[in-house]
C-alpha cells in the first residue's frame, strides 16, 4: 500500500458524508417512500377490473422497465423544466434543481419496480380475506387499506427493502446530471487532487458495507416475519 494516501480520505470525510452521503440517503429514503406509495397505487390499478386502468398502469410499468435508468435520469433532467413551464403556463422553463429532478425521476422509475412487488403481495392475499372485508360492509378502499395492503406490505417487506438497497446503489447514477451525491462528491475530490485510487476505493468500501449490512438485516427480518400465518 505504498503511496496510498490515507490522509486524503480522512481530511475529506466531512465533505464526503455531510454533503455527499446526506444527498444520497435523502434521495434514497424519499424516493423509496414516494416509489412505494405510487407503486402501490399502480399495482391496484394493474389489478383493477377496469380494463383501461390496468392497461394504462401496465403500459407505464413496462415502459419504465424497458428503458435504461441513466436515460430516464437524463430525460427528466432536461424535460421536467419544460413540463413545469407547460403546467404552470410560464413562458420560460422552470429550473428544478438536480436534487428534485433526481427525486422525481427515481420516484417514478422505482414505482414501476415497487408496483410489481406490491402486485405480487396483493395477489398473495387469499380471496376470502377480500370477501370477508366486503361481507362486513367495508368498501374497496377500506378493504384495501385495513385488510389487504397491511398484509401484502408485511409479506413483501423483505423484497421491498431489497429493492431499496438496489435503489441506494442506483442513486449513484445521478453523476450524469452532475449532482453531488456520495459518489459525485468523491469524484470531485478525486479529480481535484488527482487521488482517484484512494477516493474510488473508499467509495466502493462504503457502498459495500452499507448495502451488505442492510441485506443482512433484511435476512434477519425475513426470518422473523415468516412465523406469522
Amino acid at each position: 500500500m505504498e503511496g496510498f494516501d490515507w490522509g486524503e480520505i480522512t481530511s475529506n470525510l466531512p465533505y464526503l458524508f455531510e454533503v455527499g452521503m446526506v444527498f444520497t440517503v435523502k434521495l434514497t429514503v424519499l424516493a423509496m417512500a414516494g416509489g412505494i406509495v405510487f407503486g402501490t397505487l399502480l399495482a391496484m390499478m394493474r389489478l383493477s377490473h377496469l380494463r383501461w386502468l390496468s392497461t394504462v398502469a401496465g403500459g407505464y410499468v413496462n415502459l419504465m422497465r424497458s428503458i435504461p435508468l441513466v436515460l430516464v435520469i437524463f430525460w427528466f433532467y432536461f424535460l421536467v423544466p419544460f413540463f413545469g413551464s407547460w403546467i404552470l403556463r410560464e413562458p420560460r422553463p422552470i429550473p428544478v434543481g438536480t436534487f428534485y429532478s433526481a427525486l422525481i425521476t427515481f420516484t417514478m422509475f422505482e414505482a414501476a419496480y415497487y408496483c410489481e412487488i406490491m402486485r405480487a403481495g396483493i395477489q398473495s392475499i387469499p380471496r376470502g380475506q377480500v370477501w370477508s372485508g366486503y361481507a362486513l360492509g367495508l368498501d374497496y378502499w377500506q378493504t384495501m387499506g385495513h385488510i389487504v395492503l397491511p398484509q401484502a406490505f408485511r409479506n413483501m417487506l423483505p423484497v421491498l427493502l431489497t429493492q431499496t438497497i438496489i435503489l441506494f446503489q442506483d442513486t449513484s447514477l445521478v453523476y450524469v446530471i452532475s449532482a453531488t451525491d456520495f459518489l459525485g462528491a468523491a469524484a470531485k475530490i478525486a479529480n481535484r487532487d488527482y487521488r482517484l485510487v484512494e477516493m474510488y476505493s473508499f467509495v466502493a468500501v462504503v457502498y459495500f458495507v452499507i448495502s451488505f449490512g442492510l441485506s443482512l438485516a433484511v435476512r434477519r427480518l425475513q426470518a422473523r416475519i415468516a412465523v406469522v400465518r
Partner: protein
Amino acid sequence: MPDPSPQPMISIRNVSKWYGAFQVLTDCSTQVAKGEVVVVCGPSGSGKSTLIKCVNGLEDFQKGDVVVDAISVGDPKTDLPKLRSRVGMVFQHFELFPHMSVIANLTLAQVKVLGRPPAAATEKGMKLLERVGLAAHSAKYPAQLSGGQQQRVAIARALSMDPVAMLFDEPTSALDPEMINEVLDVMVGLARDGMTMMVVTHEMGFARKVADRVVFMDKGQVVEDCATDDFFGKPRSERAQVFLSKILHH
C-alpha cells in the same frame, strides 16, 4: 318460528350465473322468511357456495334477482357495502384478519362502517365474545386460536354488525371433527334466538335439529326445496334420495 309475513327476508328469484360459457347456476329460486333457518345441501360442485355468495353480492349473476329485506342485490344503484353490512357471513376458512387481534377483528367494521365509537364497539365485541365463550382470548391473534375458536370468533364478528340475517358457507367443513360441535352449538343457539339463517352445510344432524326447510342442489339447480321432515322422510327426487343414502348410511 317462521314469520308468516308475506315479505321474505331473503328472496332468490330465478338466478342464473355463467363463468364464461359454463353455467354454474340455472334458474335458482328459494326464499328465507324472517326467523327461518334454511339449510342448503348437495354434492360438491353443485353451486351451493356460489348461490349463497349471490345473496350478499360477493358473486354477481347474469339473470334473475336476489332481494334482501326488500332491497335488490342485482340493482346497480344498490349501495352494496351498506346491504352487506346488514347481512352477516361466515366462511369455510374463517377468514379472520390475521394481522389484527381478536377484539380488533370484531371492532373494525363496527367503527369504520357503522361509525360506532371505539369504546362502544369494544364493549359490544366483548359481549359477543362472551356469548361464544371466548372473552378470555380477546387480546390474542387468530393464529393462536384453534379452528373451532376461530370460527366462533368469525360468528361473533358477523354478529357485531347486528345483522338482519346470517349466511353460513360450509362453516364446519374445514374443522377437525372434535371442533365441529362447539361451532354448531353456537349456531343452534342463534337459531333458537330467532336469527334468520341460510346455511350451506353437510351436517345433516344440524339440519334435522334446527332447519325449517332444506334446499337440495345439484348441478347448479335447486332440485328440492321442502320442509325438513319431508326432505329426510321422503325426498321426491332420485338425486336427493341417492345423496341422503350416501351421507346417512355410515
